[in-house]
């Protein structure tokens, strides 16, 4: 199949279209604007709906409505915009509605900057909004995965009836790489017998709602949802293992930071230090098994993040703190150099875990 050069943001949009998404609602923000721009050109020609809403709050509620009506719907934004959407995402979780939400992260907190960042890890993996809930958080690290994982995201959303987030960053959104726009085989999907698409006088009403005033019933709905989360944690975690076979020092990194970490791993190996990399493709569910296994052979871990250290908590949890976990952090739109990461590897290899 022919490979074309595309920006990561554009690959996400094209992949969504391949996956059958015809409804996009959003509000522009750097560095994700190309997702919306691409959709605005393509969707009207496909008989779909592209709508630039008046705000992120409106966008996410339009996604909620479209999803309740049974169609594959999507929005994209960047960090501050996702914060604005958090109420709507919580409502969607409470309504058990599928949707794909893209966050091409920028530096924060607050309005922050527009350069790449990974400081929304906690937001994506703990809870994007209020209440007991998770979204599945997928982390591509190249334009090909922007295409492939976006398609998977729609399937996961439909299978588990939950919002799925693509967590990218400004580098991945803006960079061009060759991509094969291949259709990922669709997984077996459950029938959407819960949608509010009209009864045609043949069945009772379906109701999509997150208001449950009886605590017993609300508790039960949470229990049911967490049964699904358990299934997700057991079966959907994904992790790339890069040179970990004989690794003494194991780096943990995702997204853009994982690419730079690979340079550092190679540089460390050239100096005789056995370094490797674990790269989660799913941030929630976190690939705990890969990390637990690594804790048996690695001497130490280094969490390489474009944040002040957020994923490091998951690394410590998954390894049950059996080995030291050091942090190599840049934030605010600054990006590690491979040399910086290499220096950390050398330091940790020398027994300095600070």
């Amino acid at each position: 199949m022919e490979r074309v050069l595309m920006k990561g943001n554009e690959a996400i949009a094209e992949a969504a279209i391949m996956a059958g998404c015809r409804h996009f609602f959003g509000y522009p923000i750097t560095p994700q604007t190309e997702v919306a721009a691409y959709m605005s050109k393509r969707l009207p020609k496909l008989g779909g709906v592209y709508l630039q809403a008046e705000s992120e709050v409106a966008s996410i509620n339009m996604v909620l409505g479209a999803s309740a009506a049974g169609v594959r719907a999507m929005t994209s934004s960047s960090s501050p915009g996702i914060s604005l959407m958090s109420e709507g995402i919580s409502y969607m979780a409470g309504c058990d509605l599928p949707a794909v939400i893209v966050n091409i992260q920028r530096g924060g907190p607050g309005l922050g900057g527009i350069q790449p960042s990974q400081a929304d890890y906690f937001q994506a993996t703990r809870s994007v909004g209020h209440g007991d809930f998770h979204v599945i958080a997928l982390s591509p690290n190249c334009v090909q995965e922007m295409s492939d994982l976006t398609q998977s995201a729609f399937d996961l959303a439909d299978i588990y009836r939950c919002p799925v987030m693509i967590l990218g960053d400004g580098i991945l959104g803006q960079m061009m790489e060759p991509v094969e726009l291949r259709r990922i085989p669709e997984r077996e999907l459950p029938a959407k017998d819960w949608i509010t698409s009209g009864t045609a006088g043949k069945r009772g009403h379906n109701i999509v709602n997150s208001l449950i005033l009886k605590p017993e019933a609300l508790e039960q709905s949470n229990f049911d949802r967490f049964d699904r989360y358990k299934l997700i944690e057991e079966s959907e975690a994904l992790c790339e293992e890069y040179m970990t076979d004989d690794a003494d020092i194991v780096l943990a990194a995702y997204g853009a930071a994982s690419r730079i970490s690979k340079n550092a791993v190679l540089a460390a190996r050239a100096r005789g230090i056995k370094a490797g990399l674990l790269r989660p493709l799913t941030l929630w569910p976190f690939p705990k098994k890969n990390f637990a296994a690594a804790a048996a052979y690695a001497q130490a871990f280094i969490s390489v993040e474009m944040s002040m250290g957020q994923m490091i908590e998951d690394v410590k949890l998954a390894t049950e703190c059996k080995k030291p976990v050091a942090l190599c952090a840049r934030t605010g739109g600054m990006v590690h150099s491979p040399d910086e990461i290499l220096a950390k590897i050398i330091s940790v290899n020398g027994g300095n875990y600070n």
Partner: protein
Amino acid sequence: MGDAVILVAGFGGQGILFAGKFLVYAGMLQGKHVSWLPSYGPEMRGGTANCSVIISDRPIGSPIAETPNILVVMNTPSLDAFEKSCVSGGRIFVDSSLIERKIVRDDVTGFYIPATRLADEDKLKGLANMIMVGKIIRETGICDSDEMEAALNKIVPERKKNMLEANLRAINLGYISA
């Protein structure tokens, strides 16, 4: 040649990103691993612009040309900012009609092309970037003439196909420049 780690830098509006796009397509058409990363943000409108292009036989880790072996500069602030980042033995291509000073370092090779002046003289206004590209092709052999034409065909949009000939002329002008 080994990995090409290219940084193209200048003002917004000089076609910095376009020159980068040409180079990355040329690499892709050779079946290499490639990446293209622009600087993005408010500074792109009239301020500084730069883009990283990496062409490699192996999968690409970092897409940032932190230490380029081919540096292309089209204004003085860019030379000031990036001269020190070039690897030892690297090549620096300077638009000498816009940058008055010479390269300070003696461990890199400098090529001085009055690209903006050449473009103005040959009614190729706005194509100084492709004159620089022509010189890069000449000095690095980064692509052959077939690959060059194929790459141009990829990046010149359909509605601007009349620009193809001008781009070819610009590249040729850079290629034959002393």
